[in-house]
């Protein structure tokens, strides 16, 4: 050991360092006491036997160490020795665990940065949720010490299970690949985090989004009316306030009582608190617009602030390039840690790097001085500074689309939260498209169901989510855009018509702008948005069914409920004057009355009104079609300037017409409700899932089509080929396709065929030869011409000739080459044909004998 040879001065220095370190060591002192008497073995030991995995298929990098890796291990060993010497009280570092092939590998080389081709995996939350869904969690063999084994991410992915270190390494690889400044962390956390116990957590789906209080900047106007003097007794107010305070106090007491109850729910004190080893991922700010550092717990995929009290301490962090040891005090958990890895006092770096930011570079020099004083081998030091992390030994991480989609092993995952259970399925696994179900319970024991929420995917009826409230028996269904009739939300107790229900619609997709329709046995309320006639609300009241047929509303359809009253409300239409713009229109069917209320005029407090009494039969018989008694008018702000009866009559006629239409409309909307209910029932009875046309695996139709075309192609192709290659055909035709051929015929056929082929080859060679000669002749001619006229030629003409000359030379060269080749290959071709003919089934019988 080199350390033994150090001189006094260095010893002193070291002591100082040790003193500094002692502070941070304190929480670990407990460990020595505890680890002796108990080693907690988790009850649910995995049934998976890692020793049985197949390692024969793994690449050689898994089974051996390259020279650089060996050197790295040496450096790491050295580093560890110094570390144990300097900080003897701290736990040994997690530096080079054994991989699945039993080879020591440095942890940084196990990280294999990979960007996977899925858009979801481009963001940290997508990666984290994939990792936590895809892998099954295994507890550490011993919760107090880091594992001695660390498998490659590829193996972990293959078997879909692993401990927190495996999770972290995989997640870290993906995050670094996606461009994040991510690190694996080896540290300590609470029992809940380490054992993936979320039963004390509120389910993230149940967490209410924090409402951001909207700050309305109200500019105070200096012109404000002073409110009328306050005549209330101050004393009374005081008394009231006192009372209020008292009641509040009692309330608080009660609440406190409740709090006590909730405290009971809190976990009992964990004897191993602060000692449980955990691995997670740290993402530092700077890259990918991350504003501040945060942790990701790989088991849950959730992000945590670095102040989170569940994380109790950090031993070391590493990424694919380097390894840092935390030298900061972790007594208060991770709250006070400063994540500036360039700070050598707080973070002890293993490999001083060159590709780190400048600040780190500067620090690195200091650090070398400080740390390497312990070394007397200067060469080693030099080597150390220049050494870069070797590339990862792990094969590229690959996830097939199928695996990516299936997510959890066997496509199902169950998570228990505080008073809630969350189940997840892979899409298309369930026949009804169910992908997620959250069951909320009233008690901690999870016996009494309060609410069930189900999420669906790829459903043809666009059902997105269904919420069933067990207490109120209310079912709420949420639909994505695209459902028939623009249905958005459907809240109901039963599917029976004319019971209490609320339907919300995508009003943009509807012609009538209907946004919501609330219904119960005796009324329908409809809310509209963005209509041209400014109507925003319609309320219809129904009477008891089948009482009297003489009731006006029942005449159209005896089965339907008689309409008693219809009310419409309108927004202000700015194109009309206010007292001609109807705000509310009430049709009292049974009383044969129509009430009109108009909008308020500017600064007026009373609205104009018109009450029509519809002419009864008696009136009709008389010639009077309109009398002043039939309409009571109140015109705000104008002395009774009665409008002419003519106008009133016209208005009444219009209103009667509209009443008819409105009635029809009400019937239509009743029919629509029935229709929707029927459609919904049919849809629920026969649930269909949609498949994207790009999804070739799932899309049966496409697959069949594809295969059909492929088969068709195959069918066609061989025929074609055969025809092409039937060299005997022309000769067979000559002898007239005999069923059977005599030996003489066959021989003649063969000879004919061969001679024909020979002739063709010779002809071909002759053609090439002729071409060659022609080119040469031409060249000669040209050359001669050039020689004769050389003196008269201008420079340009000369250049043209030269270009032409070189081109001709090139052609000659090519032709010569071809001729040569032809000469060489011709005999071979001839032999090949002869061979082929011998093997031809039609001739084989005779030829083989021959």
């Amino acid at each position, binding site marked *: 050991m080199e350390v033994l040879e150090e001189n006094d001065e260095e010893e002193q220095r070291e002591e100082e360092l040790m003193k500094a370190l002692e502070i941070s060591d304190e929480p670990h002192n407990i460990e020595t006491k505890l680890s002796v008497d108990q080693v907690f073995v988790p009850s649910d030991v995995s049934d998976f036997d890692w020793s049985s995995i197949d390692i024969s298929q793994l690449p050689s990098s898994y089974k051996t160490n390259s020279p650089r890796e060996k050197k790295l291990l040496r450096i790491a060993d050295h580093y560890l020795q110094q570390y144990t010497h300097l900080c003897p009280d701290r736990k040994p570092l997690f530096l080079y665990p054994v991989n699945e092939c039993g080879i020591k590998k440095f942890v940084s080389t196990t990280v294999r940065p990979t960007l996977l081709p899925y858009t979801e995996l481009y963001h940290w939350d997508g990666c984290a949720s994939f990792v936590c869904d895809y892998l099954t969690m295994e507890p550490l063999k011993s919760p107090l010490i880091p594992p001695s084994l660390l498998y490659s991410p590829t193996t972990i992915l293959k078997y879909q299970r692993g401990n927190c270190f495996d999770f972290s390494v995989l997640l870290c690889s993906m995050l670094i690949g996606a461009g994040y400044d991510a690190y694996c962390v080896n540290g300590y956390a609470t029992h809940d985090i380490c054992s993936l116990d979320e039963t004390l957590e509120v389910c993230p789906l149940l967490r209410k989004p924090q409402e951001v209080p909207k700050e309305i900047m109200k500019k105070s106007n200096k012109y*404000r009316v*002073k409110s009328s003097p306050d005549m209330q007794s101050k004393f009374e107010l005081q008394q009231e306030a006192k009372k209020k305070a008292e009641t509040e106090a009692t309330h608080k007491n009660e609440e406190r009582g409740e709090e006590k109850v909730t405290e009971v729910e809190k976990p009992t004190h964990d004897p191993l608190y602060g000692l449980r080893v955990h691995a997670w991922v740290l993402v530092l700010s700077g890259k990918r617009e991350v504003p501040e550092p945060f942790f990701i717990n790989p088991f849950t995929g959730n992000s945590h602030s670095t102040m989170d009290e569940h994380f109790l301490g950090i031993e070391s962090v590493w990424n694919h390039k380097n390894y840092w040891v935390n030298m900061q005090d972790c007594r208060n958990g991770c709250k006070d840690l400063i994540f500036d890895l360039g700070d050598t006092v707080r973070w002890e770096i293993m490999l001083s790097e060159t590709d780190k930011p400048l600040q780190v570079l500067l620090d690195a020099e200091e650090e070398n001085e400080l740390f390497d004083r312990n070394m007397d081998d200067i060469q080693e030091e030099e080597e150390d500074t220049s050494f870069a992390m070797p590339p990862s030994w792990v094969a590229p991480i690959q996830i097939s689309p199928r695996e990516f989609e299936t997510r959890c092993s066997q496509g199902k995952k169950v998570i228990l939260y505080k008073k809630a259970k969350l189940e997840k399925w892979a899409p298309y696994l369930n026949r009804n498209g169910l992908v997620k179900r959250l069951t909320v319970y009233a008690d901690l024991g999870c016996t009494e169901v309060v609410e069930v929420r189900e999420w669906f995917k790829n459903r043809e009826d666009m059902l997105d989510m269904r919420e069933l409230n067990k207490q109120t028996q209310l079912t709420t269904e949420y639909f994505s855009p695209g459902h028939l009739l623009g249905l958005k939300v459907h809240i109901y107790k039963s599917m029976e018509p004319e019971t209490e229900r609320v339907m919300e619609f995508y009003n943009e997709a509807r012609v009538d702008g209907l946004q919501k329709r609330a219904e119960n046995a005796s009324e329908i309320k409809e809310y509209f948005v963005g209509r041209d006639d400014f109507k925003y609300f319609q309320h219809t009241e129904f009477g008891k069914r089948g009482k009297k047929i003489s009731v006006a509303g029942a005449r159209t359809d005896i089965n339907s409920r008689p309409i008693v009253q219809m009310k419409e409300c309108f927004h202000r239409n700015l194109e009309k004057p206010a007292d001609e713009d109807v705000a509310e229109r009430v049709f009292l069917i049974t009383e044969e009355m129509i009430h009109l209320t108009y909008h308020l005029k500017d600064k007026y*407090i009373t609205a104009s009104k018109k009450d029509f009494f519809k002419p009864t039969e008696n009136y009709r018989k008389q010639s009077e079609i309109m009398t002043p008694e039939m309409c009571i008018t109140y015109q705000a702000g104008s002395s009774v300037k009665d409008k002419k009866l003519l106008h009133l009559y016209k208005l009444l006629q219009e209103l009667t017409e509209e009443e008819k239409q409105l009635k029809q409309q009400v019937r239509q909307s009743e029919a629509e409700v029935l229709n929707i209910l029927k459609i919904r029932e049919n849809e629920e009875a026969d649930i269909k899932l949609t498949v994207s046309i790009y999804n070739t695996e799932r899309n049966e139709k496409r697959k069949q089509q594809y295969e059909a075309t492929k088969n068709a192609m195959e069918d066609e192709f061989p025929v074609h080929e055969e025809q092409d290659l039937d060299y005997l055909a022309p000769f067979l035709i000559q002898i007239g396709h005999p069923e059977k051929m005599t030996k003489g015929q066959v021989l003649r056929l063969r000879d004919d065929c061969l001679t024909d082929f020979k002739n063709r080859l010779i002809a071909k060679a002759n053609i090439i030869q002729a071409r060659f000669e022609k080119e040469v002749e031409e060249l000669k001619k040209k050359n001669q011409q050039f020689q004769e006229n050389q003196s008269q030629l201008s420079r340009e003409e000369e250049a043209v000739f030269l270009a032409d000359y070189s081109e001709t030379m090139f052609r000659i060269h090519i032709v010569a080459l071809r001729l040569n080749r032809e000469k060489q290959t011709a005999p071979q071709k001839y032999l090949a044909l002869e061979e082929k003919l011998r093997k031809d089934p039609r001739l084989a019988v005779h030829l083989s004998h021959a």
Partner: protein
Amino acid sequence: MSQSYNSIKPNVIDDEMLQKAVEERLPEDIGKLAKREGIDFKDVTELQLSFRNILQIDNLWQFENLTKLQLDNNIIEKIEALESLVHLVWLDLSFNNIEVIEGLDTLVKLQDLSLYNNRISKIEHMDTLQELQIFSIGKNNLTALEDVVYLRRFKKLRTLNLTGNPFCEEEQYVLFVVAHIPDLVYLDFKLVSDTTRELAVSKYHYLIDPLEHEEAQALAQLEEKLAKQKELEYHKTAFVEYLNGSFLFDSLYAEDTEAAKLAYLPGVDDLLQAYRKDFVSVCENLFNYGLKEYEKREAEVSEFYKGLHEALTANQQEGRKIILDFENRNKERLDEIHHATSYNIAESKRAEYNEDILQLSETLMTLEMQTVDQLEELIKDFEKNIAVIASTFIENVKGMMAQCRDLENRHHEKLLEISINTLEKSVKNELDEDLPDDVRELLVDKTTLVNMVNTSHNVHLLKIDMRECDILSNTYRWQASVTGKAFQNEIDRNRNRVKEIFQYIDNLQEQLDSIELLEPPE
């Protein structure tokens, strides 16, 4: 028409004819009702007077709200008496004997005009009909194809009918028209095809291009003029028009002949230049200050109205709430009275209701009184603030005007000095410069010269005073009008509200009384 063609008796539009025409339009049942009640010509929007042998248009002034008028198939010779029908959209004057287009200037909303089959020989007098979309002037006496160019000004014209005019015989008629009216969709009942349009453009672009250029220029000029006018308007509302430059200074010397003569004296020119520079800079200051103050005034006024609006909205809501409460409560009560079993009960209920109405009236009036007090205070505040703004403005303007006057005084003194010096020199014959004769004449007598300089000075001072006076009086007027308007608005509002309350209460009472009538005393 029962009469034979030859014995047409010319008619003039009279009340009887109109009455008949209006009644004809109504359906039978309504007609009866209308007849009994009498028809108000103001309510009529459409009128058809075809085939009535009308010679002269008259008596149509009552139809203020007419939008559609048909006068086709008459013997009208002159378009007249249509000035008051400003809402007219549709006018049919086809099959008449009209010779000149005229009398349409006020019908700015006109979209569809038909002058088919008349005797018109020139398209003219239609500049105001910018809304025109359909124009039919077929079968007339139009001979000059260049007349069509006139129609370019109707930017919304899409349908045009020119058939049966003499110029339609000309070979290039269609192309010429299409080229000159590029947005035309239908010409002579036919769709204008794209090929025709392209052909027309390629053929006549030499005519159209300069035309377009000219129009664009005219438009640009107009816009510039408008912009300038708008700016001037803005300056005027700020009371500092023509102060951003040397306008005022120039106006000082505009009618001052003496100054012009004095300017020839040696050294005066330099003096004048320096004076001008100082003066203009003071004017500029004043101008900028004026604009700034104007913004301040506007902000103050708008803030006041914002506050007022808030107060009024709150008041309206409060009143509305009271009334709605009352109405909800009393609907049932009216029913009760209506269905009361005995007269006594009905009577007591009625009395109760009456009481309620009085109570409501009381509440509403109290609210109104309260509002009046509040608003009065508000308006007084406003008045005070406006007064402060106005007085500071006036003070500052006065200060700047005093600067102008100082400059003038100083200039005057120097001018006097130079004049006298020159005079002395001249007397001593030491003057070496060449001066015009009339100026030389001045340099004879000292008193005349001094008088002259003084007159010039006085003229200048007067001009400055006048400008100052202008600004001040404008400011005072503005102050009075703004505050006056606020007070007047409030008074009007109060009156309206009180009237409304009374009317509403009366209405309620009436309703109550009418119910009582239905209840026979036992």
